[in-house]
Structure formats: C-alpha cells, structure tokens
C-alpha cells in the first residue's frame, strides 16, 4: 500500500506557496506555507485596539491572539444563531436569530444594545 504523496493531483488549498490570495485580503503576502494563522487582517484589529484611550501599547502577539479570538467568536455566534434558525426550519440566518442568540447566551450579554 503505497502511501499517496501529498499533492498527487488533488489540489489542496495550502499547497501553493504564495499562489492563492483568496482569503488573505489585507495581509502581507507571505510565502511561508501554512501562514494563514489568522484570516482577519492584523492591521484592522490593531486599529480597534488603538481606539481604546486607555491602551498605551499592544504587543504583536496580543494583536494576533485578539484576531484569532475574534474569528473564534464569529464562528461561535454564527453557530449559536444557527440553532435558532434551525428551530424555525429556515436555511437562512436572519438578524433575529442573532438577537435571540444574544439574549439566550450569557456570554453574549456584552453585546446587548451594541448592535444598533
């Protein structure tokens, strides 16, 4: 049983070094393989962090983790909102599903009143 070598005809996403620019919009074009550790552009996350008047400086690692955490957050809230849509047997997530999720889930309490 010959182990199939990676990239033997099946186009996997992470193969081409620096070839695809699909999701990495504002990020610097890195050629390192597997460099998509975060999809959100760090520059924009940094802008948000700097918007806080109490923050003096933020290290690069901190910005990176915040970006990654924001991604996890988006995944989480999308899934929770989807549960509500599923109960309504709909296949399109609506704004009200989001509102329901925010009300239902304690961790999202900080969002109340902020999305208008």
């Amino acid at each position, binding site marked *: 049983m010959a182990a199939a070598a990676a990239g033997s005809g099946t186009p996997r996403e992470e193969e081409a070094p620096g070839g695809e620019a699909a999701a990495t*919009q504002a990020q610097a074009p890195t050629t390192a393989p597997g460099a998509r550790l975060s999809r959100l552009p760090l520059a924009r996350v940094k802008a948000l962090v700097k918007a806080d008047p109490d923050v003096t400086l933020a290290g690069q690692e901190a910005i990176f983790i915040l970006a990654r955490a924001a991604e996890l957050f988006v995944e989480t809230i999308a899934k929770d909102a989807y549960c509500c849509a599923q109960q309504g047997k709909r296949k*399109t997530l609506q704004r009200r599903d989001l509102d329901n999720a925010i009300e239902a889930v304690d961790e999202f309490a900080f969002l109340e009143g902020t999305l208008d």
Partner: protein
Amino acid sequence: MAERPEDLNLPNAVITRIIKEALPDGVNISKEARSAISRAASVFVLYATSCANNFAMKGKRKTLNASDVLSAMEEMEFQRFVTPLKEALEAYRREQKGKKEASEQKKKDKDKKTDSEEQDKSREEDDEDEERLDEEEQNEEEEVDN
C-alpha cells in the same frame, strides 16, 4: 476621519467566509445578520481589549501581551477559547521565529555570496533543488555552531 470605534469594521468578505465555514453547507446568511455579526466581532475586540488592558495595568505594564488577552478571555467567560488560542499562539511564535531566522540568513548570504539570487530562485522551486537545499542546511548548521 473621526470614526467611532464601533464603526471600525472587519472586512466583510473575511467575516462571511468564517461564518460559512462554521455553518453546514447550504445554509445562507442574510446581509443584515452578517453585518450584525461583523459589528459584534468589533465590539468583542474592543471589550476584550479593555479587559486585557485591566490585566496589564494590574501587572503594572503598559504593553498588552498575549497572556493579558488570554486572561481577558477567561474573565469574559470564553474559557473555551483559551486552549485553541494557546495553540495558535505557539504556532504563531514558531512562524515568527522561522521568519526572523530566514531573513537574517538572507542578509548574511547576500553579504557573503554573489550567488544569492540563484539560491533565492531555487527556494521557490521545490522540484529540482534538493541538493541546494542540502547546502543551505549545511550553511545553517555552520551558523548555529558559530
């Protein structure tokens, strides 16, 4: 360009992609829901920043670091994020280290050899240049010994 912090949105295309990958195939998302999630993500970052800053101030530091953010996650009751974030941090640190060493290596090569251009080309082509890659590895070992 005086924008409120909440208006600093993250790129729509990226947000949409993250959402679609989190949800089962065939599920759609309305524009309103998507932009609300985008907004929520911005608010999340702002809130996390504020929490993390509190930890930094407690530690009498002026620079937010990674552990401040991790502590903030726990404070915000997002403990489930902590483990994946730690893993991501490790990977990020390894990558940063690799990048740094690679660029330092490049600088030294430029100074030493005039063949550096050929070596750069060979790095991009993975097919034929195993021999040259071996040479580079040897060079790296020499540097480490020094």
